[in-house]
């Protein structure tokens, strides 16, 4: 799976057409299986290219209202949703939704 800056992620989703976009932090959490460890948070049969890493981070479209300059990310290990400094040029994964 390729990683993207935030702008690249938005473009990556938009070029599919049909309304595909970067998901909100709530939408992305619906495909995370909280009973699994970080490397298998998403059903591998449905989403087979999930990276085998303990530190998997996905872009969401949700800025953090409580911490300006931060954005919500969904990621493995012991946090599923976390607001962290969003360097827009940093490279993370993205799953597009519509």
């Amino acid at each position: 799976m390729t990683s993207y800056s935030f702008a690249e992620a938005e473009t990556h989703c938009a070029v599919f057409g049909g309304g595909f976009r970067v998901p909100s932090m709530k939408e992305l959490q619906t495909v995370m299986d909280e009973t699994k460890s970080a490397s298998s948070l998403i059903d591998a049969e449905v989403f087979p290219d999930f990276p085998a890493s303990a530190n998997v981070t996905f872009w969401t479209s949700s800025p953090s209202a409580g911490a300006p300059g931060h954005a919500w990310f969904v990621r493995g290990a012991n946090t599923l949703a976390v607001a962290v400094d969003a360097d827009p040029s940093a490279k993370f994964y993205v799953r597009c939704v519509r």
Partner: protein
Amino acid sequence: MVTAALQHECFRYALLSLLIVSCGEANNGHPASPSAANTGTDAGAGGDAGAGHGGQCSGSQTDAADASPWATWPMPNPSSSGLPNPARYDTSQSGVVIDQVTGLMWQRESPAEYGFAGAATHCAELGLAGHCDWRLPTRIELVSLVDFTLSNPTLDSAAFPAASGEYWSASALDKYRWRIGSDGATRALTETMAPTALARCVREHVSHSLPEPRYQFTGQAPDDWGPIAVRGWFGSDARE
């Protein structure tokens, strides 16, 4: 040529479901009990809260572990976000909030902190709005309340009185238990790391009985990719 390539890429990445549907099958160590919801635990329509012991119910029903770990409803987005499934709450009944997107009924106030066992007991014994089938929410149920356009507390302030802190979920990962902070974050902590938290009890008010499979595949991927394109049951073009 470019279009064709994009189509392939589209299928390749058209993967994120807006919703995962519970199949009512044994799932990750939480065997689903089809009869768990709304069976014999209500105090009766329009009845007084609980079974007549100061709002207390027997506490013997509605094991939170029977709740599906998946969202069995469309995931609400904040109403101001412009995204699909905008949140709508019904606060017309005293003490409770009905989420009109998820169909869940929530305890409106959550004034006290408990250890995990105490929190589970608190919900099991809760008699509120004439119902006794209250339980601790799952992780994804708590996530459904988050309004990420707000700063702490990230809850609709008209529906839920302000309360800052961490909320217990019934969902676990190994020795950790998932909790949702009033800041909107989802974290796994052990009881040793953080012994007490708030409890906001929930019950299924309007049932969503959705068919299998959890994912709907809507196209074929490139040959080297397998059948993989997915569309959510509740994508913006596929609501109920």
